[in-house]
């Protein structure tokens, strides 16, 4: 298959031009001051040290916690959903997966507006609770609202890769495990779960990325006081107009994500290598 190694060239050129060059520009912004005028540019690390201020660290922490919580919820809900879907026959599976994808085609902003009308103080959920004589609860502008909105937005990105990886597990492996005396739990843990790890990692990566950089959902469901790192970046670029500091935060965010993903990948690779070794030893 050596013939195909040249196939990467178009993309290599393309990505240098349209992905790498803008990134270099942003890095340049992050280590300079002087706003957008090129005349009075000077190099500095001040933009980075500024992030060390307690208020910004707090924002960073909040974003990480929210990301962790929403990804965990998505993982549990999404894995079970993906697993259950694989229990149906192929045509039904296709249909169910399609149904998981459709909501993604409806504008995110609109779906978030719909959550506002569901969750607001005089909203549909409170009216529904009222039917059972329950007092109205405040959902809007709380962590709960933001997590609900976020999870409903990113859950499909967890379900689809996991489903894909469970589905392609060879049935005979599962049957073999059962024939060899493994009970249901053992079969699931040792075969299904283990073999679906690549899908899980893909799903976790996607949802983590989406949840940690979001800014529209927290803004609408959490209110202006719900400041996450995405909002901070947006603020710096749009309202404050401090592109230098905005670029520095973007780079920090990108670095955090890079580290997180490298760790996850390493975990994935180690796992694979371990398997390979075991196979060899046998």
């Amino acid at each position, binding site marked *: 298959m050596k013939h*195909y190694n*040249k196939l990467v060239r178009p993309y290599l050129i393309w990505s240098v031009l349209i992905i790498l060059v803008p990134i270099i520009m942003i890095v340049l912004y992050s280590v300079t001051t002087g706003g957008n005028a090129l005349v009075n540019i000077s190099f500095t690390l001040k933009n980075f040290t500024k992030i060390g201020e307690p208020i910004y660290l707090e*924002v960073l922490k*909040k974003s990480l916690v929210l990301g962790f919580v929403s990804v965990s919820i998505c993982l549990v809900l999404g894995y079970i959903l993906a697993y*259950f879907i694989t*229990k149906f026959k192929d045509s039904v599976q296709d249909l169910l997966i399609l149904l998981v994808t459709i909501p993604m085609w409806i504008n995110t902003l609109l779906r978030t507006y*719909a959550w506002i009308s569901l969750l607001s103080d*005089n909203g549909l959920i409170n009216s529904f609770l009222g039917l059972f004589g329950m007092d109205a609860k405040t959902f809007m502008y709380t962590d709960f609202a933001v997590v609900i909105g976020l999870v409903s937005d990113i859950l499909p990105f967890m379900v689809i890769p996991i489903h894909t990886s469970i589905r392609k597990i060879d049935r005979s492996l599962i049957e073999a495990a059962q024939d060899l005396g493994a009970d249901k739990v053992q079969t699931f843990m040792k075969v299904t779960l283990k073999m679906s790890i690549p899908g899980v990692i893909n799903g976790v990566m996607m949802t983590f990325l989406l949840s940690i950089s979001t800014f529209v959902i927290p803004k609408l469901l959490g209110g202006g006081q719900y400041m996450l790192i995405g909002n901070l970046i947006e603020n710096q670029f749009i309202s404050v107009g401090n592109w230098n500091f905005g670029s520095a935060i*973007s780079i920090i965010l990108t670095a955090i994500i890079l580290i997180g993903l490298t760790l996850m990948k390493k975990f994935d690779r180690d796992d694979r290598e371990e398997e390979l070794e075991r196979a060899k030893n046998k």
Partner: protein
Amino acid sequence: MQRTNKRSKVLYILYIAVLFVFFYLPIVVTMVFSFNSSKSLTHMTGFSFRWYERLINDGSIMKAVYVSLTVALFATVISTILGTITAIGLSKNKKIVKDVIMNINNITIMSPDIVTAIGLMILFSSIMMAKGYMTMLLAHIAFCTPYVVTAVYPKVRQLDPAIADAAMDLGATPFQALIKVIIPMLKDGIYAGILLAFTMSFDDFVISYFVTGNGVENISIIVYNMTKRTNPTINALSTIVILTIAILIVISKLVPSVLRKHMKKLLAVAGVLLVGLAIFAGTRSGGRTLRIYNAGEYIDPELIEEFEAEYDCKVVYETFDSNESMYTKIKSGAEYDILIPSDYMIERLIKEEFLQPVNWNNIPNAKGLNKEIMGMPYDPDNTYSVPYFVGTVGILYDTTIVDEKDLSEGWELLRDEKYKGQVYMYDSERDSFMIALKANGYSMNTEDYGEIEEAYRWLIEQRDSMDVVYAGDDVIDNMISGNKALAVVYSGDGAYIMVENENMDYFEPEQGTNEWCDAMVMTKDCRDEELAEAFMNYMLDPEVAERNSVFVGYTSPVSCVADTLAATEFEGISAYVPNFGAPKNEAFGYQEMKLKQHFADLWTKVKAY
């Protein structure tokens, strides 16, 4: 599968059903509200088809649908091909090449949208590429391709390398082996990539928003700029989208064989049609054009059409969601003829030399302008700006909850613990500090750091004792639904809310408030000054100004129009008659970068806790 017993099947179905309710509840709500008789997205007042009518008549939405669809289709096709061949090539390359590409890929996926957007915007500006359809498409390909690579590459890794060799040993050329053997085996991954790419592109907002221009807007941009005046037109559109998808699914399930047989032909025809349409849309008729950049939902669209007919020209009309995002776009090289920003932003644009003077001789309708709003500090002689709408900032309150006697507290009403948990502040740094400074008896344009510090404390104490919510334009819908008792609003929004919810009333505290003015200005890039001035004059024509004011709900700067409407259309709506010239009122002035940065840091501290 036979081993699955009935009981667990019920469990599966139940669980799937519950999660699907979670997925589809917001969509069902969206669909239901498309039939709402009023503008609210949270309160059902009756059944009607009016939003569907409006959708069909709204040229800009139909155009946006076209842009969203074609960009998504082209971006999907191109990025799928590019991504798939890259993924195939990738596994056959040296580790170093692999690492470089995978890392570039990850960086694109991982960068927050806003960073990618700004990066691309800077790129397109620096190579002087005209912003519009092409830049949007390029940007979409840029962010979709990495997703395709990520989806396809794992499949390539699982591929047995011997398979392609086997095909070639049997006489296939490398190309044939690729098309007939490898790609079919990657089908699942490619399919996932297509889905991802299409979804990402169709739903994208941030990146499109920054890289587009010249009137090219997709659905998301239209929706986002509508937040000021949300209405169910977009819900109607979504309902149609959902139904279309549903119908397509049913058809493909019912006649799969027919579809499969003719799939290639159908795709080819669709492709040709799209290319044709894109070329058609790309060509623009000659003649005069006027490029206007205004806040979202801030004009009666019929007026634009009538202006086009009257002056035999084409208006390229684009919208922004805030003065600041408009500024960011202008600063990054976007070109327009007319802008309609607010006072303090106009002052900034004047100082940074983005504007050119207006020739008032060409605007005879100016004689009708309210004298009190002329010559404000941002542009003392009105050299550059022609007023468009005017108003104040005040408190909107629910008369059924708030005691009239408490109104004498002025801005302190927002810190009255009687109304704890009942307050919406407006999520705007300048307006919030204006309130805190006025409450302390200072000028809202103070440069005294001690006074600013006091105002900051005022806001912190308010935040901690009142559980305030800093809402954006969602405050409009929230107050129409009566979710809280008090809200800081612009007078025009107040008028709009009061029309929809009669329990609400508006007042301006005596400690003084912000008198603002949104005005039309002409940029230095303006290509047709005569036409720009004709437009400004047209908007001040009493009949036009009246229709616009009725449509938007903001106070007209044309005296006779404001007076007439206050006595007719907006009778009893106090917010339509802002109290101009109250002794302690002021207008926002220009802030130097250092001061601006100081306020921004303090505001971040107020909000993030």
